[in-house]
């Protein structure tokens, strides 16, 4: 069966109407019936009660005196009460005193004993007991029974009538409700259908016909109005939605455009940020910031290049840690000074410790960092590493000093050489003449002293790089192996000499005599550093110096070099000593033990040869000198052939001697004439030119000083060679003047006689030249 709530509305309506009318009818009938029944019963009871009262009162004496006759008489009076069917009187002792029965058998059984007072109903019969009291004492009990049969039968027909009315009226209600429900349910069904249609199709134009002016009519009208309003709102919504969609689309387009622009801006910003970050990070300037307690808050990438620490390593650390101990107080003072807080600072120099323990000098520009309220929250700045610049400045200063010293030494040496030449020359002449006993030995002493003085002068010149070099293509391995044999004798047996020549060594161009000098000076220096003996290592190597190597050995520049290394394991030296070792007359040796010129000479020779010298030394860890000579590129095989001096006496040749120093000029003439040369002399270039022009005979050779008042030996040689084209020229010089020293080598084929020279050197050199000229002529 379908649940009630699923029933169609009209059926519900019918059912409800029918049920309501039937129930109300039944309910009212039941009330009516029960009221009638109660009333009937009440009437019967009242009647019975009244009869019992009268009977009880009349029976008191009969009961008191147990007078059966009087009791019977009393009950007989009930014949007049048709509703009373039976009665009985019980005495106080329970004896039945009298009984009244209207119709035998109809009354049913009568009670044999007296019961408690009250009514009892048996169907249509009602009975009651009534205690009879006299003077407060029970004297007996009256039983009386009535029958309301007639009244009850009347009541039954009444009930049937009512039930019939119920059925009839329920049927009528059913029929009526069936008819009436249409009036109510039809419009509701129409409404329902309309709602369904609207819900199904969304078509708000549907309207429902109004059924009238009742609530349903109002509802229908309201529904129609609602539909109308929804339709309007729907239309408005559609319009608004369309408008909104357009707006949204437009906004989306704008947003897209904006996003694109913003992305472009962001990209540009990022590019810009990257660029500036890259600039900041990659600049060689150290950019930094610290908080008020001096702890790093930022360092750019430069710090790693400058101090070896990564920026992350230093974050949060105290900046004073890395500052040179002597610079901490000045730095703290600077940061706390009012001027620095207000205006910042610039040009402050501080030494910072590199991760490897060395120190770098940085020039700082910076200022205090302030928050919005003007409180100092830290400092920031840009520091520039000026270590290299300082070193260069130092080097420049050093070389200027060396130059000055060299110029001074050179100037002295020039004059000394002339003087020494005279002394040596005449000493030779004296000894050659044969001197009386004792005098020869004295002249010999003079000559030796002069030779030592000449040696000193040569060293001065070597340092001042003003001596005349005679460079040759050299294999340094040959040089060191030749010298190696000699060294033990020079430096003693306590020092072990280890040679490590590198095979296939590149060639260099240098003056072998000077290289010998360099090696000997370094060996002596090493020996002095190892008074208890030790090991001297001499090695060679081909070095292709890159930037890093060049930087580590300033002022070396990148390139190919032959490296000559001289190392000892002696006492070493500190940085202060290291900085000054190449200065002339600087010595750590005891007075009288060293000249102070040894390492200065080495320095001068190496520099003049186009090379560099670098020293590494720590106290107690020995010293290593490294000499870098430029590799000779190209024609490595060409080597000047040494021509052995010949004892063979040449033919009498005419030599033009030009010398401004009179003593030397006289000496030279005397030496040459004593060896069979014809000699012309001139005191200056001009005089020599005149002489050459006035001289009728041949001039086989020009022997001229280089540095002279007026024009130099070089100029003179050029002029004379113009007039006498095949004239060989031999230069004499105490030192190289600028004209020669500019390239530090003489022109090819030029022959130089180093002052002071002895007789043997002079004659052999001149004969050599004359022979080669002769060979040229004959060939």
């Amino acid at each position, binding site marked *: 069966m379908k649940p009630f709530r699923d029933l169609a509305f009209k059926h519900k309506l019918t059912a409800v109407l029918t049920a309501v009318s039937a129930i109300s009818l039944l309910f009212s009938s039941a009330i009516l019936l029960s009221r009638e029944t109660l009333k009937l019963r009440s009437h019967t009871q009242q009647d019975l009660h009244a009869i019992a009262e009268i009977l009880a009162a009349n029976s008191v*004496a009969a009961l*008191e005196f147990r007078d059966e006759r*009087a009791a019977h008489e009393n009950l007989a009076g009930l014949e007049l009460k048709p509703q009373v069917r039976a009665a009985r009187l019980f005495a*106080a002792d329970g004896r039945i005193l009298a009984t009244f029965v209207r119709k035998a058998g109809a009354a049913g059984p009568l009670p044999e004993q007296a019961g408690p007072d009250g009514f009892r109903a048996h169907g249509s019969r009602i009975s009651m007991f009534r205690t009879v009291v006299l*003077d407060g*004492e029970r004297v007996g009990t009256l039983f009386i029974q009535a029958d309301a049969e007639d009244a009850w039968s009347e009541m039954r027909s009444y009930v049937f009538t009512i039930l019939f009315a119920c059925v009839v009226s329920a049927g009528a209600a059913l029929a009526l409700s069936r008819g009436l429900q249409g009036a109510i349910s039809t419009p509701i069904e129409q409404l329902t259908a309309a709602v369904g249609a609207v819900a199904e199709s969304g078509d708000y134009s549907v309207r429902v016909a109004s059924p009238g002016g009742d609530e349903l009519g109002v509802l229908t009208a309201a529904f129609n109005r609602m539909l109308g309003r929804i339709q309007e709102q729907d239309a408005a919504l559609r319009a608004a939605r369309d408008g909104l969609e357009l707006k949204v689309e437009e906004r989306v387009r704008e947003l897209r455009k904006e996003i694109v622009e913003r992305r472009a801006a962001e990209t540009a910003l990022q590019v810009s940020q990257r660029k500036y970050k890259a600039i900041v990070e990659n600049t060689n300037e150290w950019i930094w910031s610290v908080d008020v307690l001096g702890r790093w808050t930022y360092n750019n990438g430069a710090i790693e290049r400058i101090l070896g620490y990564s920026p992350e390593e230093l974050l949060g650390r105290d900046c004073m840690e890395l500052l040179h101990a002597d610079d901490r107080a000045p730095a703290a003072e600077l940061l706390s000074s009012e001027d620095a807080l207000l205006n910042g600072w610039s040009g402050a120099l501080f030494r910072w410790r590199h991760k490897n323990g060395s120190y770098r000098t940085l020039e700082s520009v910076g200022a205090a960092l302030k928050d919005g309220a003007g409180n100092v929250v830290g400092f920031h700045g840009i520091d520039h590493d000026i270590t290299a610049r300082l070193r260069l400045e130092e080097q420049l200063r050093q070389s200027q000093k060396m130059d000055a010293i060299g110029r001074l030494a050179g100037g002295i040496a020039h004059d000394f050489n002339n003087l020494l030449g005279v002394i040596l020359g005449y000493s030779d002449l004296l000894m050659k003449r044969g001197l009386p006993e004792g005098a020869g030995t004295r002249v010999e002493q003079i000559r030796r002293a002069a030779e030592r003085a000449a040696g000193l002068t040569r060293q001065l010149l070597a340092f001042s790089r003003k001596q005349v070099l005679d460079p040759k293509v050299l294999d340094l391995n040959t040089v060191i192996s030749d010298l190696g044999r000699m060294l033990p004798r020079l430096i003693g047996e306590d020092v072990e000499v280890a040679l490590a020549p590198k095979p296939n060594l590149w060639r260099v161009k240098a003056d072998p005599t000077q290289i010998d000098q360099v090696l000997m000076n370094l060996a002596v220096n090493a020996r002095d550093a190892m008074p208890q003996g030790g090991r001297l290592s001499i090695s060679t190597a081909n070095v292709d110096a890159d930037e890093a190597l060049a930087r580590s050995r300033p002022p070396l520049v990148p390139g190919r070099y032959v490296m000559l290394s001289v190392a000892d394991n002696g006492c070493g030296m500190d940085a202060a000593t290291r900085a000054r070792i190449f200065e002339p007359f600087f010595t750590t040796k005891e007075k009288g033990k060293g000249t102070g010129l040894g390492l200065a000479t080495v320095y001068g020779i190496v520099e003049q040869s186009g090379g560099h010298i670098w020293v590494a030394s720590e106290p107690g860890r020995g010293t290593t000198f490294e000499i870098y000579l430029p590799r000779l590129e190209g024609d490595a095989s060409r080597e000047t052939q040494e021509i052995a001096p010949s004892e063979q006496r040449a033919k009498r040749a005419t030599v033009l001697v030009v010398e401004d120093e009179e003593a030397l000029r006289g000496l030279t003439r005397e030496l040459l004439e004593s060896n069979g040369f014809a000699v012309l002399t001139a005191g200056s270039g001009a005089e020599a030119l005149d002489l050459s022009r006035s001289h009728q005979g041949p001039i086989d050779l020009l022997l001229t000083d280089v540095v002279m008042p007026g024009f130099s030996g070089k100029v003179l040689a050029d002029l004379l060679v113009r007039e006498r084209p095949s004239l060989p020229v031999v230069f004499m010089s105490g030192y190289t003047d600028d004209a020669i020293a500019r390239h530090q080598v003489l022109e090819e084929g030029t022959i130089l006689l180093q002052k002071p020279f002895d007789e043997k050197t002079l004659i052999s050199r001149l004969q050599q030249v004359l022979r080669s000229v002769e060979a040229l002529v004959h060939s």
Partner: protein
Amino acid sequence: MARGRALAALLALLGACTELRADESNEHAVKAAFVSKFARFVEWPQAGRCPDHFTIAVLGKDAFTDALQRAIEGREVRERPTRVRRVTAVGQVEPCSLLWLGAAEEKHLEAVLGELGRVPVLVVGDATGFTSRGGMIGLFVENERVGFDVNVGAAERAGLRISSRLLGLARAVAKGDEGKRR
């Protein structure tokens, strides 16, 4: 409760007694029960001046006293405690009481009535013709059953009213001095 049950037993006994033949002792018991019940159907005048107990007086020496004593035991008349009292002279009879005039004193009836005058005393006896001689209620035995006659006039002269219910049970009711048979 125990007392209630005892009462019921006594009543049952009394009932049983009235069933018996009116032999000498039973007759006395039934008559005593009747006497004890009459007072309930009588209204005494000036009830307010009555003593607060009800007395059944017995004149002279009479064996009936014991039977009366047994009949009234535990009973109240007009809501007053009831007692049986033997009197030797009429003057001893209190107002509002019942006077039993036994067979032995029956010959003094007229003197007693005269002496009582208008004193409200219910005079009861069992002499033959008791009511016709001026007695108020007279008991008799007839067909082995005890019955009584009533002289309403004599009672009214003494200021007493006897209930019609009692009168309904009487064999004969006399209105005047002369009792007449119904």
